[in-house]
């Protein structure tokens, strides 16, 4: 159904952004499948066991995920490069194992009876998050994030509390992954731990890398292509993973920098440069 495709595309765009938000401060997180599972199961438990309203439980669960994300990022950020990646993969695995062994969450059998998400809920969230990221890309915050990502040590020497910036961005990414997980679960009706395994985390990262890591559009495009492209060869279900793999290899070969690699300038001097050059504005005169 077209509605399903659109829904899953929207969810995947949100998940790609959850990875992108963390990547904005320089960390590559493979833990977002775990954060997604946290959101799905925590809200699922509250809506099915206590009959609470989905919209009532999403905000506190997102907050919980943000705190959890911030907490796990603290030790994770002490490690670098490949070690950080391994730590975040570990978080995804632990989350899966934890759910599998939990009776209350249905264990390996899964959790059912989850309803309440309409596709338009996801589209609205895509719009809100996208608009937020777009606004951020023109603010000083974007520059600070770019600085932390490009050279953390120099950023710190300028006075930026890089740990704080990274922890907050981890928390924000975790909250978005958890919110997406909640919406996803309450659309699927029935969820199992393997919906949120390490592969899920890997896919989210792939969307961002294939689409481009420097702007919000890359992640969205990557997620859209990777969600819809395999659908074009319906009827050959057994070939879908192969096609998926081939697309990844092809894109990485043709555009290793991602489909949309540009970075938006946060500020421009534009015509003011000419005024300075002509000496219409004097150094020091305009200093705040």
């Amino acid at each position: 159904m077209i509605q399903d495709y659109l829904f899953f595309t929207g969810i995947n765009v949100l998940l790609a952004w959850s990875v992108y938000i963390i990547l904005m401060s320089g960390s590559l997180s493979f833990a977002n499948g775990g954060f997604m599972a946290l959101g799905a199961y925590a809200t699922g438990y509250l809506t099915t066991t206590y009959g609470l309203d989905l919209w009532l439980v999403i905000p506190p669960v997102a907050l919980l995920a943000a705190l959890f994300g911030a907490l796990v990022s603290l030790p994770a950020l002490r490690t670098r490069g490949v070690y950080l990646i391994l730590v975040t993969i570990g978080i995804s695995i632990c989350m899966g194992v934890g759910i599998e062994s939990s009776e209350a969450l249905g264990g390996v059998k899964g959790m059912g009876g989850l309803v309440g998400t309409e596709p338009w809920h996801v589209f609205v969230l895509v719009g809100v998050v996208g608009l937020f990221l777009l606004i951020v890309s023109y603010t000083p915050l974007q520059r600070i994030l770019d600085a932390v990502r490009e050279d953390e040590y120099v950023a710190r020497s300028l006075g930026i509390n890089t740990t704080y910036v990274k922890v907050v961005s981890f928390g924000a990414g975790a909250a978005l992954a958890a919110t997406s997980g909640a919406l996803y679960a309450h659309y699927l009706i029935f969820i199992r731990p393997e919906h949120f395994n390490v592969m899920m985390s890997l896919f989210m990262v792939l969307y961002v890398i294939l689409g481009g890591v420097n702007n919000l559009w890359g992640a969205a495009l990557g997620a859209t292509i990777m969600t819809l492209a395999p659908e074009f060869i319906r009827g050959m279900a057994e070939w879908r993973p192969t096609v998926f793999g081939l697309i990844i290899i092809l894109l990485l070969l043709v555009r290793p920098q991602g489909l949309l690699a540009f970075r938006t300038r946060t500020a421009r001097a534009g015509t003011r440069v000419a005024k300075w050059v002509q000496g219409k504005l004097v150094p020091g005169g305009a200093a705040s």
Partner: protein
Amino acid sequence: MKMALSLTNVCKRFGGVTALDGVSFDVAHGELLGLVGPNGAGKSVLVNVVSGFYPLTTGSILVDGRDVTYAPPHHFGRLGIARTFQNIRLFKRMSVLENVLVAFPRHVRSPFGSILRWNRRAEIDHALALLSQMRLVEKADQSAGSLAYGEARRLEIARALATEPKLLLLDEPAAGMNDRETDELRADISDLRSMLDAIVLIEHNVEFLRGLSDRLVVLDYGRMIADGVPDIVLKIPAVVEAYLGAAEDA
């Protein structure tokens, strides 16, 4: 009297390597201190220690009378210490203008609050003023990665100035520049003095410092071998020897 910078018995060891070995000196307010010494003497390590890049092994650092020895790294910038790098470290993906804007204290101190603060025209003008001072204003909208070597060095200074520092540490700012660029840079640095409380200038070439610096501190193998007025320091036999030795190596 409070000093702009005061180092007491600063030691820095990397495993078995002692890069700084009991270095003590003060930089007075208004002073331009030249820090010289042969390659590997520990000059860059000293800048790294004073700017919070490396924690020191023993000793203490006071900035304007405040003990910063155990301050977290990001506090150094906020306390008014800015620096440049011997190996240029600009944010290459950003524009020249953005490299300056990113360092403004208002945003640096509350990054997430800066979502609500747009790029004010006054701020851009302030950045352009700093760029104009470093003769880079025409390049404002270019990518920092596209700058020539000498320009990149000057942009590092402009970025450092954007933090509104009291103390500026320049690590071989003239390295790789030709004679004309070096002379221009010398004039630029001279002009900066009025904006800053104190400057520590590392330079391999002592001729660059003669007439520019008020005082020279000479390092050799992590030890301070001289501290005084340039004309006198450069006649001390140990200094001459350290330099001649280095010249022969080169």
